[in-house]
């Protein structure tokens, strides 16, 4: 299966669940900003959930099916649309050769993930297909997609993907009568972000800590795949020590010397020297991946143990979902 990009949209890249094993050499994790949507798109097709997907930011992208396609998409940045109407998300969709697919704006969030049966076929670099443009590695030639780029899928399909393809194959666009329900894995309030207090949270004064957990913070325009600058109540320090650079990870909330905060995201550096006020619970990082400049968020404190339990529960639900899709096509 193969597509050709007609309009690439804003910063469109190939991503997977990330590059875990080279952190000690300062290679960032990268991967989908909203891991949950990326995995959901893969699960709907019976793919391995680390298969490469295309990450679109907002809409205004367009591609054409150069062969018959079996795709699925998930996310809140755009709705995929054909000449005959919109395609539902989070379910397998068969698209015949020659069909043009457009991304229409979805005001709910910012990023949308397109999976294809088998996964997008780009070379694995350092154990991952994720694009990291700073080092020009991963994805398609280590860069964002451009008009005219052709992307193919890996030909080897899982038994489930093969069965889905046989089930949906047709002369016209065709999809299943069911979809996965990503919202069941997300909290009802998508603008409240659960955090565990960071190792340097005692470096800040009481009133700043109170502001941190009770007042809203706005995502500034200085936001990208590396991190989000947050605007809101200033965080004041009582401990003026310099933090010796140490490991940070996506979800770390750093406080800069001016008292503003930066929430680190997928392409963040592996070490940092700003005190860490909090760490976003991994299960809420998909919510962060959908934020856009101007969005207001509130932070809510949970314990490290709770964050861990939520993570384990979340992973078990995803395993269950993968099995459900498999069982539908036995």
């Amino acid at each position: 299966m193969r597509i050709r990009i007609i309009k690439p949209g804003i910063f469109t890249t190939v991503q997977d669940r990330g590059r875990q094993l080279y952190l000690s050499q300062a290679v960032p994790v990268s991967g989908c900003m909203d891991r949950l949507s990326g995995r959901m798109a893969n699960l709907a097709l019976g793919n391995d959930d680390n298969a490469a997907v295309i990450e679109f930011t907002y809409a205004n992208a367009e591609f054409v099916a150069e062969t018959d396609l079996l795709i699925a998409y998930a996310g809140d940045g755009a709705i995929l649309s054909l000449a005959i109407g919109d395609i539902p998300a989070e379910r397998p969709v068969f698209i015949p050769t020659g069909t043009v697919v457009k991304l229409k704006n979805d005001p709910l969030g910012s990023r949308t993930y397109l999976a294809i049966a088998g996964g997008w076929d780009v070379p694995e670099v350092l154990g991952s297909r994720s694009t990291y443009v700073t080092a020009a590695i991963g994805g398609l030639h280590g860069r964002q997609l451009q008009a005219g780029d052709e992307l193919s899928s890996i030909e080897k399909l899982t038994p489930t993907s093969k069965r889905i393809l046989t089930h949906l194959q047709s002369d016209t666009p065709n999809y299943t009568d069911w979809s996965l329900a990503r919202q069941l894995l997300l909290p009802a309030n998508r603008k409240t972000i659960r955090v565990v207090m960071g190792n340097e949270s005692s470096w800040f004064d009481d009133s700043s800590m109170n502001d941190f957990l009770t007042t809203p913070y706005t995502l500034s325009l200085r936001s990208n795949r590396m991190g989000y600058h947050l605007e809101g109540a200033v965080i004041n320090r009582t401990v003026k020590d310099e933090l010796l650079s140490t490991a940070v990870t996506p979800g770390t909330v750093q406080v800069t010397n001016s008292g503003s905060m930066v929430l680190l995201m997928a392409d963040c550096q592996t070490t940092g020297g700003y005190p860490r006020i909090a760490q976003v619970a991994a299960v809420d990082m998909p919510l962060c991946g959908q934020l856009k400049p101007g969005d207001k968020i509130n932070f809510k404190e949970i314990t490290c143990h709770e964050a861990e339990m939520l993570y384990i529960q979340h992973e078990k639900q995803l395993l269950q979902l993968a099995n459900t899709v498999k069982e539908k096509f036995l």
Partner: protein
Amino acid sequence: MQTQATVGQYFNVYALSEQAITIEFGQEINEDTLQKVTAFNQLIIQNPFPGFYTTVPAYTTLTVFFDPLQVIQSDLPGTDCFDKVSAYLTGLKNNRQDILITHPGTITIPVCYDGLFGPDIEEVASHTKLTPQEVISLHSKAIYKVYMIGFVPGFAYLGGMAEALATPRRATPRNAVPAGSVGIAGMQTGVYPLETPGGWQIIGRTPLKMFNADRPQPALLKAGDQVVFKPIDKSEFDHLANNPNADKDH
């Protein structure tokens, strides 16, 4: 070469996230703490636990990344991942006070300090009240220690620069500093592995690739390594830059 190292008594463990635990071995940057971080890093890599992914060594800390699902399903003692992993790490430390650490020897990085590659060498010379030749001589005479890799892939934080060379960052950072550029910022010196924006005073350039994703170990340097800079002229720079195996000997 191998020497005995000890992890020591200071061993402060905290959660970075539900997928990572940080161990702090001291509170100051020094060779003793670096050796403890390096030794324990080697120990954990040789003795991984179920679900172990990778580590990030830093100035005084070692962070251990893992898959919580594999840890919770393992028979490590403890009720949650933090308990299980921190008990395992503490046990490793208590059982293995003496660790043999392997020293990689000294890595030589050829640097061309020619004005073409080191546009700020005059500024460093005038700030430090040295001649450019003295700057080169001081910079290439020292033996440096790699304290950590961070900032961008393959960037080594080096310790050991002569204090006389300390020069503040440029007032205006450059939008693009070429890969291989050797710079000074305050008391630090380092090599830019990739073309990135940067404010360091650039005094030269190495033809070696400090980061190359095609190598089994993409970063040329790792925490704990010793490094020296060797002055080379423009023709040797060109020769090495055109030799694709130049960085494979290291």
